[in-house]
């Protein structure tokens, strides 16, 4: 840590419900705890410097409290737009009865330093979309990230023929917002579930996911490692459920059963404007029951809830899942505002209106509150279990300096 610089540059205030999390630059040191370590309401643990996610554009009070570390500093600070009271006040506010501070140290500036670093390096996010063709996957991804990021928009014809086998195609774009750069990769899976015989159509997808883990593993195991290993692992898989109104289809169950242990699966109900509100509620209940009966753990998985706060937040989300969404890239005028929607003969379906569909909920959940967590669970849990499996075969991997010889030993 260099000079202690009292934070002068305020993070830009924004209005999301939860503080958005941004990934730390170096993924090579696994974070011991979940990304929402810094949350509203305190009670979080003090993470090692490389592990604190920086809430960019955060709004309200963000508490950082620490347990007794070393010389027992109990220090609670609140960051807000007009930060100045933290210095003096902090000293007397002790969370665990440790010695009070006699002055301002500047530990809280770690947040700012993280933020600056992240802004320089940016971060990666890889999202995969799976579902029958025509369920609006590309449109939804474009709507989520408010830009033309799907494969279709990258110059592919909308009416391409259905491929005979499932293909996996990735397209990357760099998005920038508030000085933060995100390299977003959208991985599409055309051909899934579209044939007459769909046996094993999930295999190419499973193979792709494991290949990304393998790539990362190889880099990690190198003696001369890159400073920042490029992360192509799939952080999140949006699975599109067809809105039949009855229940899950066999293919849905098969796919999710097989892949929920290697990737974070977030089921969504596509084209939700096909169902009335009651039909939607019934359908969701039936789907949730079927997921439970099939032992399918979708993200956020119950077993990874860290503490009561997480559990409560995540329980609420799990109750509301799968989100019934509608996507659109067209704007219409409604009540004087321009909104994204679908115009039919009987009305306009507003995508971001919570009374119409649950798109806004999905977006907040995916991007504004759990983006970092998705990456962490992928790294700490899914990747680790892949790594453990690999290390147990072949009697272990030998770190070698050059990639070629590494192949022959594995």
């Amino acid at each position, binding site marked *: 840590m260099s000079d202690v610089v009292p934070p002068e540059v305020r993070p830009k205030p924004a209005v999301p419900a939860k503080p958005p999390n941004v990934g730390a630059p170096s993924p090579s040191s696994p974070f011991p705890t979940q990304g929402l370590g810094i949350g509203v309401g305190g009670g979080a643990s003090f993470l090692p410097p490389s592990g604190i996610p920086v809430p960019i554009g955060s709004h309200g009070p963000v508490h950082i409290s620490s347990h007794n570390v070393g010389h027992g500093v109990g220090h609670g600070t609140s960051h807000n737009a007009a930060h100045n009271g933290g210095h003096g006040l902090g000293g007397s506010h002790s969370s665990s009865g440790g010695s009070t501070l006699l002055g301002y140290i500047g530990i809280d500036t770690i947040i700012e330093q993280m933020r600056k670093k992240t802004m320089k390096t940016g971060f990666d996010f890889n999202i995969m979309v799976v579902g029958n063709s*025509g369920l609006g996957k590309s449109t939804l991804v474009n709507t989520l990230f408010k830009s033309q990021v799907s494969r279709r928009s990258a110059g592919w014809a909308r009416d391409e023929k259905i491929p005979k086998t499932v293909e996996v195609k990735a397209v990357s774009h760099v998005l920038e917002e508030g000085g933060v750069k995100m390299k977003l990769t959208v991985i599409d899976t055309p051909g899934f579930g*579209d044939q007459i*015989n*769909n046996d094993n159509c999930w295999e190419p997808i499973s193979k792709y996911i494991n290949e990304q883990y393998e790539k990362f593993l190889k880099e990690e195991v190198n003696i001369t490692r890159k400073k920042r290993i490029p992360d192509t692992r799939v952080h999140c898989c949006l699975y599109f459920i067809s809105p039949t109104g*009855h229940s899950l289809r*066999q293919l849905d169950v098969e796919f999710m059963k097989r892949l929920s242990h290697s990737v974070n699966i977030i089921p969504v109900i596509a*084209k939700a404007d096909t169902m*009335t509100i009651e039909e939607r509620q019934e359908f969701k209940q039936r789907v949730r029951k079927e997921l439970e009966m099939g032992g399918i753990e979708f993200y956020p998985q119950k077993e990874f809830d860290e503490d009561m706060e997480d559990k409560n937040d995540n329980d609420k989300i799990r109750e509301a899942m799968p989100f019934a969404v509608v996507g659109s890239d067209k704007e219409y005028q409604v009540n004087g505002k321009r909104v994204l929607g679908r115009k039919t003969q*009987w009305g306009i*379906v507003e995508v971001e209106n919570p009374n119409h569909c649950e798109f806004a909920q999905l977006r907040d959940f995916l991007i504004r509150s759990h983006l970092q967590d998705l990456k962490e669970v992928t790294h700490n849990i899914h990747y680790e279990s892949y790594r453990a499996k690999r290390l147990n075969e072949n009697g272990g991997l030998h770190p070698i300096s050059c990639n070629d010889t590494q192949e022959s030993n594995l």
Partner: protein
Amino acid sequence: KSVKKGFDFTLMVAGESGLGKSTLVNSLFLTDLYKDRKLLNAEERIMQTVEITKHTVDIEEKGVKLKLTIVDTPGFGDAVNNTECWKSVADYIDQQFEQYFRDESGLNRKNIQDNRVHCCLYFISPFGHGLRPLDVEFMKALHEKVNIVPVLAKADTLTPSEVKKKKMKIREEIEQYGIKIYQFPDCDSDEDEDFKQQDSELKESIPFAVIGSNTVVEAKGKRVRGRLYPWGIVEVENSAHCDFVKLRNMLVRTHMQDLKDVTRETHYENYRAQCIQSMTRMVVKERNRNKLTRESGTDFPIPAMPRMADNETEKLIREKDEELRRMQEMLQRIQDQMHTQKEAY
């Protein structure tokens, strides 16, 4: 007299689950045929194969009786591997033809039960980009056995431009794959303009974009059948919203007789011709064999059976011969008919 007897009509509905087939059937005929239906969940459906179920309902309106039979195909297209899932459907249709064929050749022909399928509504999913491989295979397997009327299901999921695009795409693909859907007969040149206009509109509307509902909602002060969404109300019987009215009129009011006629004259006759051909081939083989034994040398003791048959067997043999002769006559008639038809074109 035929009005007194009433009409009968058999309608088949086919397509994946969840496309609103049952709702549409109930909406079309204002019935509640699926009241006690139990929806299976994904686990239960793993073991299920395509079933064929039949529901019959008697409808009477203004003194006219209609005995309506709905044939449903639950389980179609629901499995992970749907290879040949249309086979049980094709077999069912053939079975009805066979039963009718036997009845027709039988002795008591006054009260033949006509269970032949007169029309098959095939539900195309609005979520795809046109026809899916399964749709194409199904329609190709059945277009020469039954009148196929393609229907674009759950059309309230689509904006008007999407409906138009999809209809065009589906029509293109139907032509591209050589699928012979039910053709509306051309109207006579001396019909009035209105009628001709309606007729061409009907033809342009294939596949019919339908929405079904049996719940009544309040829209603009009127009580209508529809679906209530937070963003508006879809009225089932509003032509600007969907083609439900067109489909219903076509099916019940204007084209019911034609559907039955085409079933009788084309699909059934095709079946019969195929059947008789294969039968006569078998019979000719039999005859040839018999001829050989009778005419071949008298060294062999001639079996007593054909000669000194008792009454029972003789009667049976005579009946069989009679049947064969009749079939051959029928075959001849069909061939003549086909000849005249060919000449007429």
